[in-house]
């Protein structure tokens, strides 16, 4: 017998240690405080958290390390930090501060061995590779890796890159469709199912969740091991507990909310 529990993961954007892009649900005193928001999502039943660091200036990166430390002191569920991690040393600082995983994207495309270095040093379970992909024009089964929020093409095939990062030592893939991201029309199921079929490591589906049923589709049709969403949770439309109830009602195993 095997329990395979699907994880529900809220994603928070942080800039210089503060949560940005408006989070607004009840009982939040400071919508920019990562610790308070993390605790609120923990209370709702979030299985993990992802903090996406959009800090532009590298000399403000210390604030992200401080944020990781503050979150780890108060919130006792796993969390990942992604954005701007270029070296093993960047990863080490975040992991030593209390992050459970780091997510790399652009730096891994520029220098793929970074994935191996992080995985060897800290274990594959710490090493998430984020892949932003778009459909090749007119295609339903060819996807290209993009960087810079979907603006910059890399010429790399997304399915080949997914297999490659697994071979390099990634423990998990955070897959975002740049076609569906922000649309609220649901995950890109062809992309998600193609990537989950191509690799053995867990895949977190991201980009496009507008309803709780979209999460069910991501798991059942897309084969995702985890579903990540931002706005659907941040604006109080739905709680993580709501999402889990809908998943469970569709025979998806989840850790029950408290």
């Amino acid at each position, binding site marked *: 017998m095997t329990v395979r529990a699907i*994880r529900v993961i809220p994603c928070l954007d942080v800039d210089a240690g503060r949560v940005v892009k408006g989070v607004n649900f009840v009982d939040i005193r400071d919508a920019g405080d990562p610790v308070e928001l993390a605790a609120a999502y923990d209370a709702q039943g979030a299985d993990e958290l992802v903090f996406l660091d959009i800090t532009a200036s590298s000399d403000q990166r210390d604030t992200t390390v401080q944020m990781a430390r503050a979150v780890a002191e108060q919130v006792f569920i796993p969390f990942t930090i992604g954005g701007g991690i270029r070296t093993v040393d960047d990863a080490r600082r975040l992991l030593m501060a209390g992050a459970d995983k780091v997510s790399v994207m652009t730096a891994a495309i520029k220098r793929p061995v970074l994935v191996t270095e992080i995985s060897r040093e800290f274990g594959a379970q710490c090493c998430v590779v984020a892949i932003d992909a778009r459909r090749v024009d007119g295609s339903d089964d060819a996807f290209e890796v993009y960087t810079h929020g979907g603006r910059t093409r890399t010429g790399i095939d997304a399915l080949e890159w997914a297999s490659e990062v697994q071979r390099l030592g990634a423990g998990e893939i955070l897959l975002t469709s740049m076609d569906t991201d922000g649309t609220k029309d649901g995950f890109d199921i062809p992309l998600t199912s193609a990537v989950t079929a191509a690799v053995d490591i867990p895949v977190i589906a991201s980009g496009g969740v507008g309803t709780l049923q979209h999460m069910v589709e991501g798991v059942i049709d897309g084969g995702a091991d985890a579903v990540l969403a931002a706005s659907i949770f941040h604006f109080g439309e739905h709680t993580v507990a709501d999402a889990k109830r809908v998943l469970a009602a569709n025979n998806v195993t989840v850790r029950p909310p408290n």
Partner: protein
Amino acid sequence: MSTVKAEERPLLAVLDYGIGNLHSAHKGFSHVGADTRLTADRGLINDACGVVLPGVGAFGPCMRALRAAGLDEVALDRIGAGVPFFGICIGMQMLFAGSAEAPEVEGLGVFAQTVQPLPDTVKRPQIQWNKLNVHKKHPMLNDLGDEAWVYFVHSYAPEVGEEVIATCDYGGPVTAAVARDNVWAAQFHPEKSGATGLRILSNFVAYASDAAKVAA
């Protein structure tokens, strides 16, 4: 979350043998009210009313680092003295005779079984929350509610032996928690298991605190 009063904060020693991130366990125990020190100091460890052996990464490097720091002897001494002792993740695995992950490296041998890979029929490592199936009533598992879900990150686990108090289902029953006398151990990460995990840490702090009062 019930925590102990400030004036009663029991001293816990988290054994510091110089590997990776041992801070999470430390933070978790502090959060539930223990005066927690990440330390290799013999005097401090001897004064502590509870000792925690954390561990992350792989069995071989952890065991070697523990020996290099001389803390293998210290751990066995405290266990022998009856001091409440809690091994977490690789810290649990090190309490066993050895591990298939590093057959050339001896474990502490507190528990007789060995540590074996998870079955090859399932994804390894197991990185997920899983439900505890309770085999024996034990203070570690007090007040966890009807269903206790905890967070696992591991590729190996001890063989299921008679000291098992809880398993999870992952390609068959997998050892999740064991206990004998003053020694508690968990394959999962209570310090990353939300309110359920904090309850488990709190249960240990309560046990250590009570044991110290009895001894005094």
